[in-house]
Structure formats: structure tokens, C-alpha cells
């Protein structure tokens, strides 16, 4: 056994341990530890990615001394390692970009706790990515929820507390549904490990027994994870949570937390239930309907917003709709497009949140577009990053958002005729709606009317500049080097099942 194979397990344990240690450290040390930890995890994940690319197959890592049907295990392939690496990069950039805001928004004596939560969040994300055991996934879903709630409520104002409460209530409904469906699945199959469940499910569905319980199980799992990742009819918690939390929290919540759940859902589709069984139960059609309505309603809500953060938050609803549309289209290509969009949306949305924070700090900390007029001139790098992000969301060539839209369109051609037509039409309408509100916001931040906030001595924080430049590079890389990523995801998905 190669030493590199131990890395995913080390990463999860390291993050948990650092979370505990951070709670007794000073704010500065906790910050350094957290940033060091994320960088280390990124490097180690890159090693694992290299290893899995070389061996061209996924491997199973036993946790403890008990073999398959009894013990707990994690499973690592190309896709998992790539996601872990990508999540670490996004998390690092989000924290660096919002560092000054964390120092402002969070009380001095609580700052180390913020980084505790960041470490716990990373550990739960890694565990969700790697785990091969359904109940472990549930436990880490709850850890993720708690950490996310703490990241929202740590900024001590009324809005954040209310947002955290709303988030918590919706999340608990989601986790309740997930828990009961896992229990029912255990009841039907007698297993908790994903590969064993898949075998048992295949046997059960071959006999045609328990069709209704199986549909209910799949529906509960999907709804539970959809609530947590804010798919359209369940998105009521999202605008407040993303709109009022500190910038880094918003960036991490929108780009990583919801994506972790979607990744888990894709994993459940492929590894637990089996994609054919999902199609037999027609769950993908329902997800597709939710997704396309989300793409429209999210954009329409965003158009009505005058608050830059809430606008970006509503745009997330639409973009999550895109990802679920990929899952709902039900072809291999669409699934790859969905996974690619997970990456491109994560890179773009976190950049937009950080850039929006940069723009509002030169506009008297206001988030309203009337105050933000001309802020693109006052904070040049944030203005540039916001423009790149907005154009990417609209789908301008060379940028990440364009490439994922192309992949969606190409994948839709192979789908069933009704789905193909709907997907194409909604994609077109949604692109126009995106363009309406994003181009309007770009024009707004470059309208030099408001001289009230002019401050020639203002310099954006170095950390924010670095993070935004990294984000812009990442966005262009995802847009231009998309072939490489596409092949990576393709090979990852083939060893996923």
C-alpha cells in the first residue's frame, strides 16, 4: 500500500483536530493554523489526485480493522480527489479575500472560534466527498450544518441571527428527511456501506418488490439534500443567509456548502441507489422540473433586488437550478456538465461575494446600488473581479460560466425530446435574464455619479487583491482549459459507479 493512499484519512482527522486546537488558541494563531491547514490539505489532495490519475482506478480505504460489510470505509477516486483539491483552493481564496472583513465583523475574542468552524467545515466537506458509508455521511451532514450555522450567526446583528435561525430550521427539516430515509434504506437492504446497499437495491428492484418504499426513500433523500443545497422551492432561507453574513462566510456557504450536498446527492445516485433505479422511479424528471423553474424564478427575484449581496444570493438559486437541471437531464454528458458547473459556479460565486464586499467597503459599507455607483473606480481590483464574475455568470466566452452553458446545451441534445426542448428554451431565457441584472449591476458600479465616498488614500487590502487575482485566473483557467477538466471529470465519473 502506497503512503499517499493514507492522505484522505489524514486530512479529515487533521481538520477535526485543528478545529479542536483552534478553540484554545489566540485569534492570530488560529488564523495562521487554519490557513496553513487548508494549504496542506490542498497539497495532499493534489498528491492523491496525482496518485489516482496514475493508477487509473479508485481505491477503498478501510477505517479500522473490520472488512467490508461491517467496518467503515472511505473511497477515493479521481473525482473525489479533484473536488477536495478544488474545494480547498476556493476555501483558501474566500478566507484570504474576506480576511479584513472577518476581523471587522467578528468580535476580537470570538475570532478563533470562526476559524474553528472553518476547520470543522472543511473536515465535514472532505468527509462528505470521501465517505463510502451512508450513516457517516449523515453525521457529517449535521456537522456541516452546525458549522455553517455558526459561520452565519457569528456576525452579531439581528439579521444574521434571524438568517441563522431560518437556515437552521430548514436544514433540520432536511436532515430529518435524510435520517428517516437512511433508516428505511437500512431496513430494506440491511447495509450501511454504499457498495453493499447498491447490490441489495439492484436485487430488490429486479424482483419488483418494495417499489413504493423505494420511491419514498429516494424522494426523501432528494428533497432533504435539495433543501440543504437550496434548490428552487426550498430556497427561502438562502437570500438572508448569504445576504447578511460576513463576506467569507457567504462565499464559503454559496460555493462550498451547497456544492458538498449536491456532490453527495450525485454520489448517492451513482453509488447507493444506482442511476438506472433512479430513472425507473422517474425522480430525475421531478428534479428537472424544480431545476428549470428555479432557473427562471431565481433570476426574476434577482432582478427585483437593489441589494448587491442579495442579488448575488438570488442568482445562486438560478445557478443551483442549472446544476440540478444537469442531474435531471439524465445523460452521462449532462452529469459531467453538472459537475463542471459545480466547479465553475463555486469559483465565480465566491469571487462575486468577495468582490461585492470590496465594492461596499468603498461605499460606506452600504450594499445598495445607489451608494455603489462608481465604486468600480474607487476599488479597481474589486470592480474588475465583479465584472469578470458577472460576465462569467451571463456566459461570455473564455469564462467559466460560458463553458458550462455550452456543456449543458451539448448534453441536452442527447436527452429525451421534451426535456431537450425545455432545457434549450429555459437556458436561453435564463441567459437573457442573467444578462439583464448582471449587466445592469456592472453599468451601475461604473457610473461615476456618486462622489460622496471618494477617498484617494484608499488601498484595498493585500490579501483581498491576491485572492481576487487568483479567482480571476481560476475563472479564465476553467473557461479556457475546460477540456482538461472535462476529461478529468469524465474519467472520475467512470470509476464512480
Amino acid at each position: 500500500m502506497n503512503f499517499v493512499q493514507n492522505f484522505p484519512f489524514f486530512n479529515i482527522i487533521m481538520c477535526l483536530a485543528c478545529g479542536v486546537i483552534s478553540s484554545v488558541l489566540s485569534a492570530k494563531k488560529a488564523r495562521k493554523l487554519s490557513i496553513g491547514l487548508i494549504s496542506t490539505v490542498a497539497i495532499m489532495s493534489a498528491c492523491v489526485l496525482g496518485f489516482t490519475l496514475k493508477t487509473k482506478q479508485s481505491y477503498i480505504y478501510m477505517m479500522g480493522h473490520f472488512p467490508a460489510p461491517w467496518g467503515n470505509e472511505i473511497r477515493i477516486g479521481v473525482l473525489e480527489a479533484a473536488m477536495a483539491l478544488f474545494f480547498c483552493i476556493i476555501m483558501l481564496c474566500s478566507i484570504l479575500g474576506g480576511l479584513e472583513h472577518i476581523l471587522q465583523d467578528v468580535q476580537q475574542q470570538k475570532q478563533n472560534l470562526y476559524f474553528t468552524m472553518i476547520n470543522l467545515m472543511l473536515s465535514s466537506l472532505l468527509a462528505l466527498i470521501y465517505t463510502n458509508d451512508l450513516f457517516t455521511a449523515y453525521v457529517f451532514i449535521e456537522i456541516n450544518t452546525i458549522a455553517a450555522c455558526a459561520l452565519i450567526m457569528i456576525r452579531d446583528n439581528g439579521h444574521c441571527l434571524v438568517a441563522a435561525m431560518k437556515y437552521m430550521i430548514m436544514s433540520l427539516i432536511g436532515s430529518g428527511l435524510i435520517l428517516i430515509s437512511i433508516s428505511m434504506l437500512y431496513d430494506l437492504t440491511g447495509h450501511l456501506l454504499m457498495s453493499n446497499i447498491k447490490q441489495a437495491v439492484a436485487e430488490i428492484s429486479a424482483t419488483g418488490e418494495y417499489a413504493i418504499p423505494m420511491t419514498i426513500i429516494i424522494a426523501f433523500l432528494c428533497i432533504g439534500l435539495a433543501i440543504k443545497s437550496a434548490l428552487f422551492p426550498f430556497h427561502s432561507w438562502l437570500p438572508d443567509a448569504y445576504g447578511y453574513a460576513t463576506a467569507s462566510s457567504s462565499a464559503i456557504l454559496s460555493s462550498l456548502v451547497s456544492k458538498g450536498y449536491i456532490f453527495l446527492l450525485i454520489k448517492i445516485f451513482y453509488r447507493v441507489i444506482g442511476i438506472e433505479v433512479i430513472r425507473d422511479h422517474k425522480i430525475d424528471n421531478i428534479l428537472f422540473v424544480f431545476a428549470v423553474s428555479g432557473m427562471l424564478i431565481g433570476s426574476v427575484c434577482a432582478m427585483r433586488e437593489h441589494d448587491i449581496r442579495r442579488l448575488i444570493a438570488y442568482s445562486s438559486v438560478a445557478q443551483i437550478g442549472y446544476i440540478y437541471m444537469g442531474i435531471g437531464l439524465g445523460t452521462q454528458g449532462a452529469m459531467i456538465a453538472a459537475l463542471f458547473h459545480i466547479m465553475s459556479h463555486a469559483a465565480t460565486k465566491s469571487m462575486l461575494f468577495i468582490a461585492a464586499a470590496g465594492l461596499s467597503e468603498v461605499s460606506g459599507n452600504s450594499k445598495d446600488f445607489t451608494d455603489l455607483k462608481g465604486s468600480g473606480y474607487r476599488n479597481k481590483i474589486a470592480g474588475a473581479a465583479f465584472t469578470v464574475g458577472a460576465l462569467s455568470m451571463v456566459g461570455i466566452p473564455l469564462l467559466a460560466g460560458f463553458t458550462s452553458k455550452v456543456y449543458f446545451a451539448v448534453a441536452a441534445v442527447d436527452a429525451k425530446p421534451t426535456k431537450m426542448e425545455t432545457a434549450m428554451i429555459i437556458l436561453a431565457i435564463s441567459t437573457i435574464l442573467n444578462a439583464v441584472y448582471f449587466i445592469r449591476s456592472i453599468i451601475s458600479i461604473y457610473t461615476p455619479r456618486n462622489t460622496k465616498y471618494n477617498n484617494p488614500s484608499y488601498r484595498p487590502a493585500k490579501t483581498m487583491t491576491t485572492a481576487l487575482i487568483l479567482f480571476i485566473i481560476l475563472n479564465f483557467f476553467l473557461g479556457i482549459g475546460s477540456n482538461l477538466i472535462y476529461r478529468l471529470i469524465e474519467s472520475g465519473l467512470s470509476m464512480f459507479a
Partner: protein
Amino acid sequence: MGHNLIANYYELAAVVLFGIGFTTLLLHKNIIKKIMGFNIMDTAVYLFLAAKGFIAGRTAPIVVDGIQETTAYINPIPSGLVLTGIVVSVSVTALMLSLTIRLFRRYHTLDIDEIAMLAKKEDIK
């Protein structure tokens, strides 16, 4: 189908309780009642798991009198899951309660709609 319901009355009770907890959590305005609903919902799942793990005529899987045969004991895995689940739900309840305390100190009410309205008004000032 009906005869199954009577035979599996534990599961029936669990599902009914789950429904009660779920609707309370979703629809009630009072935060404390919401937390109660959440606890009822989780406990219902534990009842479901415990009922699934139980085999009539056998004892808890703890070796006391030197009996080693597996046929003497019930399935230990659901019990393990219940324990893990309890730990999770206790920590989530603690977090919810602390959040409720902070909200109550700020707004002097437990009605979630009222709190949301008060928070909005704060913004206008």
C-alpha cells in the same frame, strides 16, 4: 396492505410521530415549539430504528452470563445508530436553544415571524 400496519405497529407509531414532529418544526411560529417538534421527529426515527433492530425473545447484545451465541442477542447496529443519532440531535438542540436565547434577549419574543419583522425594521432606522 392494512394487516401489515397492525403487525408493524411500532413503525406505524414512529411514522405518525415523525409526521407530528415534522409539521410542528415546519409550521409552528414559536421557536421553542419548533425545537420540540425537531426532537419529536428525531426520536421517532430512533423508535423506528430500535423497532427494526429488535428481535422478539432476545436480549441486548451485552455478554453477561458467558452466552456467546449470536442467536441470543438482537441486532446491535441499529442501537449503535440510535446512540450516534442521539449525540447529533443533542448538539443540534443545544445550538438551537443558544440561538433562541440570543434572539429572545434581542427581541423579547419567541415568535419567528415577529422576530423577522423586528429585524427588518432595525434596518430602516
